[in-house]
């Protein structure tokens, strides 16, 4: 029996994503129709019950976020759909954008109605520019069929959706940075407070949700929360779309119930490691996530069980790495990524990444100095405590978890041996 499920992904392959008529023929927009008969408070109650944690990676409770957004005073509010998934090994939002764009539109309308917003913005990463015509069409057809625009379905609720493009900057996945980018500026994070929920895009109260989060909302409004909650565990109810890739036979985006073990995900869904190689490690949640060794592969994929191992769900990326990759080379690749993507605004991130990279390069060459690892760890801790935004705070997750789980690959046992003499 297949271990994947289809709730968020139930429409995949069921209709032509380039046609609203095709979408309507499978019952499309019933979530919006239903939501517009409910009160904002009822929708928030339902969202809280579904206990969806934000799927961009930060895992903030969606019901709580919507309740806060709804209670912020303001006649003119904004909903932003963050379609800028930039974590390496994360492509699950691409599956929604390409196979079910209308459900995303529904999710945004519902979010807008719930919090009292007039305008919605989709910030689509430049790397998905090939999906721009499809999303543009979904917005235009929704507008011409009365699901967007003024007085939607004669309810008095008016909502517009605008499409904006990113231009290849990972840091723009961060909420305030994304807002700077939509305002036509370079992408550097804003200082908080003011928080974007009160003063965000164009100084207006702003709600930012990930693509998958909005798609889930449309799903549980349409079917009720019971079906969604029948999956998962008590601590992590529901389902999640994962992006499974790396040294794996069947890479892809899969919807799974929370609670499968990593072994089930890697071997039963992913088909295991190709060419007879052995699992060495996995990285969860992208470059800002942590790595775990093969020895904990029986850990259930839930927020609480992963936390016990120091791991995160994050964006839902699961990168599988076999015995052909050296841990230090893996760490170097992640470090190079963060050097490239640091926006340069704050010193801990800009300089910390550079200095740590120098040390990692010495480890790659085998020319490390005795105190190098200690120095790298100290810099890494300063970054996680002092960086301006989430990028700098999490940039060293891979390094720190690599040192913890694979000390021998940093020559730590050898150092200990030397110290004996």
């Amino acid at each position, binding site marked *: 029996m297949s271990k994947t499920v289809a709730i968020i992904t139930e429409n995949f392959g069921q209709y032509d994503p380039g046609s609203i008529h095709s979408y309507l023929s499978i019952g499309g927009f019933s979530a919006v129709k239903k939501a517009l008969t409910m009160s904002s408070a009822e929708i928030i109650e339902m969202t809280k019950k579904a206990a969806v944690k934000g799927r961009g990676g930060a895992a903030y409770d969606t019901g709580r976020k919507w309740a806060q957004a709804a209670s912020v005073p303001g006649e003119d509010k904004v909903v932003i759909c963050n379609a800028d998934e930039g974590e*390496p*090994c994360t*492509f699950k939002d691409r599956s929604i954008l390409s196979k079910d764009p209308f459900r995303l539109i529904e999710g945004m309308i519902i979010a807008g109605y719930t919090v009292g917003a007039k305008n919605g913005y989709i910030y689509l990463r430049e790397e998905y520019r*090939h999906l721009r015509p499809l999303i543009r069409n979904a917005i235009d057809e929704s507008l011409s069929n009365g699901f967007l625009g003024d007085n939607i379905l004669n309810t008095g609720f008016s909502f517009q959706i605008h499409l904006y*493009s*990113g*231009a290849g900057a990972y840091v723009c996945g961060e909420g305030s940075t994304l807002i700077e980018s*939509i305002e036509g500026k370079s992408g550097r994070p804003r200082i908080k407070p003011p928080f974007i929920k009160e003063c965000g895009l164009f100084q207006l109260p702003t709600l930012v949700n990930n693509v998958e989060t909005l798609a889930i909302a449309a799903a549980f409004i349409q079917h009720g929360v019971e079906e969604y909650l029948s999956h998962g565990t008590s601590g992590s109810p529901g389902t999640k779309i994962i*992006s499974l890739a*790396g040294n794996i036979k069947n890479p892809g985006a899969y919807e799974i119930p929370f609670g499968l073990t990593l072994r089930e995900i890697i071997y039963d869904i992913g088909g295991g490691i190709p060419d007879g190689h052995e699992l060495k490690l996995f990285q969860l949640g992208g470059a800002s996530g942590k790595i775990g060794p093969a020895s904990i592969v029986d850990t259930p994929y839930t927020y609480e069980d992963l936390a016990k191992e120091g791991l995160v769900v994050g964006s839902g990326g699961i990168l599988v790495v076999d015995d052909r990759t050296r841990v230090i080379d893996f760490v170097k690749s992640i470090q190079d990524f963060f050097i490239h993507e640091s926006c340069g605004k704050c010193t801990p991130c800009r300089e910390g990444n550079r200095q740590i990279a120098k040390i990692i390069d010495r480890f790659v060459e085998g020319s490390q100095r005795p105190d190098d690892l200690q120095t790298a760890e100290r810099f890494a801790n300063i970054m996680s405590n002092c960086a301006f935004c989430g990028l700098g705070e999490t940039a060293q997750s891979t390094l720190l978890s690599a040192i913890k789980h694979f000390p021998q690959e940093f020559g730590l046992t050898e150092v200990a041996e030397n110290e004996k003499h």
Partner: protein
Amino acid sequence: MQRLEGVRQMNSTKTESFGILTRELAQEIDKTINHYRSNSTKLVGILLDIQDIIPKQYIPREVAAYVSEKMNIPLSKIYDVISFYAALSDVPRADYVIQLCDSVVCKVTGNTTLRDTISQLLGIKEQESTPDGKYWLEYTPCFGACDISPAMRINGKVFGHLTTQDSVKAVLDQYR
């Protein structure tokens, strides 16, 4: 080529423009800016669209100056955006911009054959163009094609499963 009057040529040694801002191109740029209603919040999208219609896929200095004037945005702000975003270039690239994914997923799945084959076939390294101006090579972070890695993009189109020399050659043959 007829030069547009009133727009100062502002070439630096780094940023060549080859006198590219013809009257025709200026009209195209006007169209793009008008399409976005000269909305300054659309600057990133406007520059991306303009870059698409300029040969060698970049924003020449004189075009940046023209957009600055047209939209009444300081040139420094235009360059703040151009220099910040990886998808915008202030140096001429080529007819075909090859973006080779160099992120950890493509490394783990083995992108050395892809890297070596491209460099060998085209005789260029990262951030270089072929002498005929046809191909430009750049390494880029993850573009979300990990399920078909190792992968590359050519003019925005994604190609994956590039594990052999033959598979890389077959893709390049489509861009002769």
